[in-house]
């Protein structure tokens, strides 16, 4: 078998090779990488048609609509970075930054407040919750999540880190400020907020475990998630992406706990972004699975 490769933007052949019919796209990408070292497999997009969809690494040559000679089109996806790296970086920032504000490191507040602690116990509670949340996210990234895609474009790390680190600093500045005002309804409000927060943290974790168990190790199969014995997963009956629902709930709880407008704003922006993601995921579930449960909404039961 012979293969021609042409670049999408220049019509010249850049690579010719001979392969077995049972070779996978992944193997072809490795061969291509050997002769063109600047294009590692993660940044190669191989397709049968210049405007078509990218072929998967697992696709086998003989199962594709090609003859004895096949022409593939290559597109450079740009510098790539692994999802794990991005997640670890974007979550470590808020964890560290918030603690810096909590301990009132120099140059943040007036010098007389350096390394003092807040007199409000809700501020200590908020620090514990915030830190717990991001520690949980880091551990989930390392041990729980199974990623469909290995990499994303490099520029995403700058965009994502600006978002997470920026908001974390903005929120932490006000919550840990010497002139912070605790919630109006005092202990009642804080207690309720804490319950909501913890409930949603457990819920969010349960969903992540359930989603992980849907997919055997190393595989990239997609299945419809269903409720399990864990009551926190029963929300799958009503929602396609309950991980986002619980995440929203946790941040709502944190907003209630701190009564801080920047936190409310962060919750709102997160809600908008997660709704967009949830709707996309919901749509692709509906497209992929004929028998998808009709009662489910993307993120909020019956509403959104």
């Amino acid at each position, binding site marked *: 078998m012979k293969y021609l490769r042409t670049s999408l933007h220049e019509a010249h052949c850049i690579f010719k090779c001979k392969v077995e019919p049972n070779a996978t796209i992944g193997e072809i990408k490795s061969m291509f990488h050997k002769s063109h070292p600047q294009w590692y497999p993660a940044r190669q997009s191989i397709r049968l048609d210049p405007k078509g969809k990218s072929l998967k690494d697992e696709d086998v040559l003989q199962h594709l609509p090609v003859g004895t000679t096949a022409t593939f089109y290559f597109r450079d996806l740009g510098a790539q970075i692994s999802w794990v790296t991005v997640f670890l970086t974007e979550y470590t920032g808020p964890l560290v930054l918030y603690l810096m504000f909590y301990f009132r490191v120099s140059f943040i507040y007036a010098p007389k407040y350096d390394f003092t602690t807040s007199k409000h116990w809700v501020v200590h509670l908020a620090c514990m919750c915030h830190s717990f949340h991001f520690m949980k996210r880091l551990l989930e990234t390392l041990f729980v999540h199974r990623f469909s895609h290995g990499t994303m474009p490099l520029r995403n790390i700058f965009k994502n880190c600006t978002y997470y680190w920026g908001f974390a600093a903005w929120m932490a500045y006000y919550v840990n400020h010497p002139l*912070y005002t605790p919630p109006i309804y005092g202990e009642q409000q804080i207690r309720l907020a804490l319950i909501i927060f913890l409930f949603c943290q457990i819920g969010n974790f349960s969903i992540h475990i359930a989603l992980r168990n849907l997919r055997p190790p190393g595989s990239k199969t997609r299945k419809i998630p269903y409720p399990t014995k864990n009551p926190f997963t029963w929300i799958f009956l009503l929602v396609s992406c309950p991980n986002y629902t619980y995440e929203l709930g946790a941040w709502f709880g944190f907003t209630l706990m701190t009564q*801080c*407008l920047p936190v409310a704003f962060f919750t709102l922006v997160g809600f908008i972004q997660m709704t967009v993601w949830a709707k996309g995921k919901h749509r692709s579930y509906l497209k992929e699975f004929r028998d998808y449960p009709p009662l489910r909404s993307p993120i909020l039961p019956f509403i959104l």
Partner: protein
Amino acid sequence: HYEEAYGEARLKCPHVALKQHRKPGFFWWLVLAMAMMRFYIQKGTHKGLYRSIARTLKFFQTFALLEVGHCALGIVRTSVIVTGVQVCSRIFMVWFVTNSIRQIQNEESVILFLVVWTMTEITRYSYYTFNLLHHLPYFIKWARYNLFIVLYPLGVAGELLTIYAALPFVRRSGMYSMRLPNKYNVSFDYYYCLIVFMLSYIPLFPQLFFHMLRQRRRVLHGEVIVEKDD
């Protein structure tokens, strides 16, 4: 300075709807130009000129929102963002700077950007209207794609000088600002907000200006404009 974004919007709007919207816009800016000239001829000074045209200006500058909104329905998202940002910056100038900070209303820089906006808009609307009627005199095309070279930087200078003049008054009065402690646990300083707004001209102005220069090269050399959505 939302010319080229408007250009993009125009290409995608149906002609019928455009005709209805272009004519009023042209009319408003002509009215404004005449009001300004009449004031200056009668009074011989620019002091008080802003006050006399303030209501008209606020009215149809806000009207521009509707016009853009109309075109935005059915347009690719990027065009909406670009157009939206630029209309918003003009509305910000009119409502949050010149309207709210009375002390700067007699500044020369205000007259500068008002004159620039008026000239730009009249040229632009004439261009669109004549284009739609398929009777475009060359001098209007020439004006649209050449005057901006002078008008755009002058307009930016007028806007920036106005905001700069307003800064001390904002600082002293503490307007639109919120300090700690308060029950929302947030603070906002309008003074620094204005400074950030001024700094935002640094990345934005060159991009828009060079875009217009590229447009100019294409149009005046007879090439077809192909708007590329990034």
